[in-house]
């Protein structure tokens, strides 16, 4: 009889997926760990306690990242939803959609580098506002593309129906369109939140080291060869999306084809 490889394969896969999480957590709890030891000399909450000390600035970075990503996710999702309607019903819809792909698909860091002059002129270079604006510019096109499919024949008919029943544009948005798109709005918010939360290159170019989001912190710690703090900030970076995903995994995944 043939031996089934399935349980074996499954265990390997679960291990492979869980390993990075466990390893990073372990690393964040370690200190004094020189080659070739397999176990660290110190294992405890030292690094996590340091989190609370303002010196590392990690807690500050965490909240700064939350503010930036929530702002970006919120503004990109709402404006993307409303404005994608104009795109979807526009006679030149395909050209406009193509145009919104450009800023989405280009490397954000190159995009940001070419734009930094204008950020300087606007006086938002190296500022949190600047980082929010910059990240908005790459997540807004995503939201536009994302909501493209919402505005079909059926939605149009629904809007028409609302107006023949006596509703104006505002009531069609508040009473019908927004409630209808509730699920999509949540997914889009989560996705644009993640674009911002994970963003490194663009933030480093526009923030020039003055706006230290968590990704910037991770990179700085790696540069300093402070891997324990690096792992600690990585944990902070992974935790919020993981929690949100646990609450509802369907928010995380959508297909962009």
């Amino acid at each position: 009889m043939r031996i089934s490889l399935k349980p074996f394969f499954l265990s390997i896969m679960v291990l492979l997926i869980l390993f990075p999480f466990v390893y990073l957590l372990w690393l964040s709890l370690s200190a004094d760990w020189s080659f070739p030891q397999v176990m660290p000399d110190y294992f405890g909450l030292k690094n996590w306690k340091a989190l609370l000390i303002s010196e590392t600035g990690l807690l500050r970075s965490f909240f700064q990242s939350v503010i930036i990503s929530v702002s970006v996710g919120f503004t990109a999702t709402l404006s993307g939803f409303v404005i994608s309607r104009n795109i979807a019903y526009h006679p030149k819809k395909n050209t406009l959609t193509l145009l919104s792909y450009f800023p989405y698909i280009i490397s954000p860091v190159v995009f940001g580098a070419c734009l930094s002059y204008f950020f300087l002129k606007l006086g938002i270079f190296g500022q949190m506002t600047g980082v929010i604006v910059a990240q908005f510019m790459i997540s807004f096109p995503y939201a536009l593309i994302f909501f493209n499919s919402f505005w079909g024949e059926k939605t149009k008919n629904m809007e028409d129906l609302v107006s023949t029943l006596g509703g104006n544009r505002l009531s069609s948005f508040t009473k019908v369109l927004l409630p209808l798109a509730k699920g999509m709005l949540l997914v889009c918010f989560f996705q644009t939140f993640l674009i911002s939360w994970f963003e490194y290159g663009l933030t480093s170019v526009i923030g020039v080291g003055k706006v230290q989001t968590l990704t910037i912190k991770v990179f700085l710690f790696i540069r300093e060869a402070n891997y324990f703090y690096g792992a600690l900030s990585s944990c902070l970076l992974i935790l919020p999306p993981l929690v949100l995903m646990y609450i509802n995994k369907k928010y995380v995944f959508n297909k962009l084809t």
Partner: protein
Amino acid sequence: MFLEIQYINKSFGKEQIVKDLNFSLAPHKTLSILGKSGCGKTSMLKIIGGLLKADSGNIILDGNDISELEAEKRNIVYLYQEDLLFPHLNVFENIAFGLRIKKQKEAHIQSKVKEMLELLELEDQGQKMPHQLSGGQRQRVSFGRAIIINPALLLLDEPFGSLDAGTRQRMQQLFKDIAHKFKITSLFVTHDLKEAILMGDEIAFMQSGKLKLYKNKEEFIADPSTGVQNEIGFWENLIPKGQNII
């Protein structure tokens, strides 16, 4: 006349969809319009409802020129073949929708919607969500939602097109009763010969953008282009064979 349509034209690009549309309709009457898909009937209804802009022509409703008025101010409800119930609202709230838009008093809304639910034989369904209803029930809710705001004119675009034969028959009767009770003026578009004859006080035929009105049903039946003669011929051809069998 209550509704007067004067010289309406509409083209998409080079193709003329509606040609010199001209007709009038007395109050509380139903004009049924027979037409195959693509004959321009949907465009015609959308122009009258204010959802599509005509290239030329006027629409007079109850003595007022409403040609330039926006859809939400016309008091004309356009109903699709699809029931288009709002999936996030229950049956009660779907029917109450237009009243809430008009910001009417809660007590008034409650009593009117209840009355409408009874009339539609949906008394026990008020709290159900649209996806829990059958096709016929959904279409009834859709009617209730339209009629409750007392529209001056009701436009029906193949309203029973997606229903099975039995449900369709019951809905036709229900509509006639309601139309009579609420004194509704309506345009009823269908591609079904029998339904066209059954539903209308007046009858018309639409083909490649042109609408032809008939003085009475006899004239409609006599016109070979409507297809009635063809239909009669089909049955007549069958009957002798049937008699042979017997």
